C-alpha cells in the first residue's frame, strides 16, 4: 500500500475510527457486527463521530480561507464584470463565500442594487448553498476524490448555465421593484489580522456545529435505518439503476427537504451501499442543499413568481440531467 492511499484511508476515511468503534460494538456492547442491530449501532456511532470530526476540522480551515471573501468583498469583485465571465466568477465565488440561507436576501438585494447582472447574481445564488469546500472534502472522504471533484464541477456548471439562461430571458422586470430602489453602498472593512481570522474560524465552527447537529443526527439515524433495516430489493426497485425514474424520484424527494450537506451525506452513503447509482444520490444531495422550502419562501420576497418558477425549473432540470449523466458514466467514477 503506498503512502497516499494509507493517508487517505486513515485521515479522510478514518479507518482507525472504524476499527475502534468495531471493538466497542463487539467487545463492550457484546453485539456481533453481522447482526442488524450491531451493524446499525456501528454505523450510527462511527458516522456521527466521523462527521463531527471532519466538520469541525474542515469548517475551521475553510472559514479561515473564507474570511478573505465576505459577501461585501464578493460584491466588489463581481462589479463591472460583464457577460459569461460574471457568471463564471459568480459561481466560483459562491464556493468560497460563507453563506447561510438567512443572508441570501440581503446578498441578493446587495448584488442587484450594485448593478450586477441578474444572471451573475443567480449563478452565485445557485452555487453558494450547493457547493462549498466542506462538501468537497466530505464527499472525498466518503466516496473518493473523483466523486468529490465531479460534484463540485457539475455544480459549477449548473450554476453558470442557470445564470446565463436567466440573463438571456431578460427577467429583470420580475424582480420586486423595491430591490432596484435600494441604493448601492460599498463599505471599507478593516483588513483582518491572522488572529482575527483564527477567531472568525473558531466562531464559525461553533456556530455551524450548533446549527447543524440535529440534522446530522437525523441524517445518520436515517442512514443507519437504510443501511440495515430496509431490504436492498425495495431500495433497488425505487432508486436502483433498473428504474428509469430513479433520478426523478430522488430529486423530487430532495427538493422540499431542508438540510445541509452534512446531514445528507450519511443518507447518501447508505444508499450507495445499497446499490443506488451515484448520479441518483448526487441528484438527491443537490436537491436537498440547493432548493428547499425555507429558502424559496425567502426568495419569493424579492422576486416575482415567474422568476421564482424559472429559477426552480432551471435548477431542477440541471440536477436531473446531472443525475442521469453521472449514472451513465458511473464506471469512470468509482
Amino acid at each position, binding site marked *: 500500500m503506498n503512502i497516499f492511499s494509507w493517508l487517505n484511508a486513515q485521515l479522510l476515511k478514518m479507518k482507525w475510527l472504524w476499527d475502534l468503534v468495531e471493538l466497542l460494538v463487539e467487545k463492550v456492547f457484546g453485539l456481533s457486527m453481522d447482526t442488524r442491530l450491531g451493524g446499525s449501532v456501528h454505523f450510527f456511532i462511527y458516522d456521527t463521530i466521523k462527521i463531527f470530526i471532519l466538520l469541525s476540522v474542515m469548517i475551521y480551515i475553510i472559514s479561515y480561507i473564507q474570511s478573505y471573501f465576505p459577501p461585501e468583498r464578493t460584491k466588489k469583485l463581481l462589479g463591472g464584470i460583464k457577460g459569461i465571465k460574471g457568471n463564471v466568477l459568480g459561481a466560483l465565488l459562491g464556493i468560497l463565500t460563507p453563506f447561510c440561507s438567512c*443572508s441570501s436576501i440581503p446578498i441578493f438585494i446587495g448584488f442587484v442594487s450594485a448593478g450586477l447582472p441578474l444572471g451573475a447574481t443567480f449563478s452565485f445564488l445557485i452555487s453558494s448553498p450547493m457547493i462549498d469546500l466542506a462538501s468537497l472534502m466530505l464527499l472525498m472522504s466518503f466516496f473518493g476524490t473523483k466523486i468529490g471533484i465531479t460534484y463540485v464541477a457539475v455544480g459549477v456548471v449548473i450554476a453558470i448555465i442557470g445564470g446565463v439562461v436567466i440573463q438571456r430571458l431578460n427577467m429583470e422586470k420580475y424582480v420586486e421593484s423595491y430591490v432596484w430602489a435600494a441604493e448601492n453602498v460599498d463599505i471599507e472593512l478593516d483588513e483582518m489580522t491572522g488572529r482575527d481570522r483564527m477567531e472568525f474560524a473558531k466562531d464559525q465552527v461553533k456556530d455551524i456545529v450548533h*446549527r447543524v447537529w440535529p440534522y446530522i443526527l437525523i441524517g445518520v439515524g436515517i442512514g443507519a435505518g437504510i443501511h440495515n433495516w430496509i431490504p436492498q430489493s425495495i431500495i433497488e426497485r425505487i432508486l436502483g439503476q433498473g428504474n428509469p425514474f430513479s433520478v426523478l424520484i430522488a430529486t423530487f424527494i430532495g427538493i422540499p427537504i431542508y438540510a445541509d450537506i452534512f446531514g445528507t451525506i450519511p443518507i447518501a452513503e447508505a444508499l450507495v451501499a445499497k446499490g443506488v447509482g451515484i448520479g441518483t444520490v448526487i441528484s438527491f444531495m443537490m436537491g436537498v442543499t440547493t432548493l428547499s422550502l425555507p429558502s424559496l419562501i425567502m426568495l419569493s420576497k424579492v422576486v416575482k413568481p415567474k422568476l421564482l418558477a424559472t429559477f426552480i425549473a432551471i435548477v431542477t432540470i440541471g440536477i436531473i440531467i446531472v443525475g442521469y449523466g453521472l449514472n451513465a458514466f458511473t464506471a469512470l467514477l468509482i
Partner: protein
Amino acid sequence: MNIKILGTGCSKCEKLEKNLNIALKELNMDATIEKVDDLLELVSYGVMSTPGFVVDDEVKSVGKALSVKEIKKMLT
C-alpha cells in the same frame, strides 16, 4: 452615541447585543441601541452578512459576534 445592530434575529446578533450591553456597562457609557431588521435598511449600509455593527452611522464590523473586549475598543 447611537448604536445600531443590523440583523434578522440570528444567534450571532443576539450574542452581539448581549456583549454590547456588558461593554457599555463596564465602560459606564450611555448609548441608544437600535435593532434594525429591515432588509432594505441593512443593505443601505452596505451590509450583507449579519450582524452589522454601526456606531454613529459608521459601519464598524459585519458578520461577527464581537466580543466585549472588541466592542470596548471600538467605542473608546
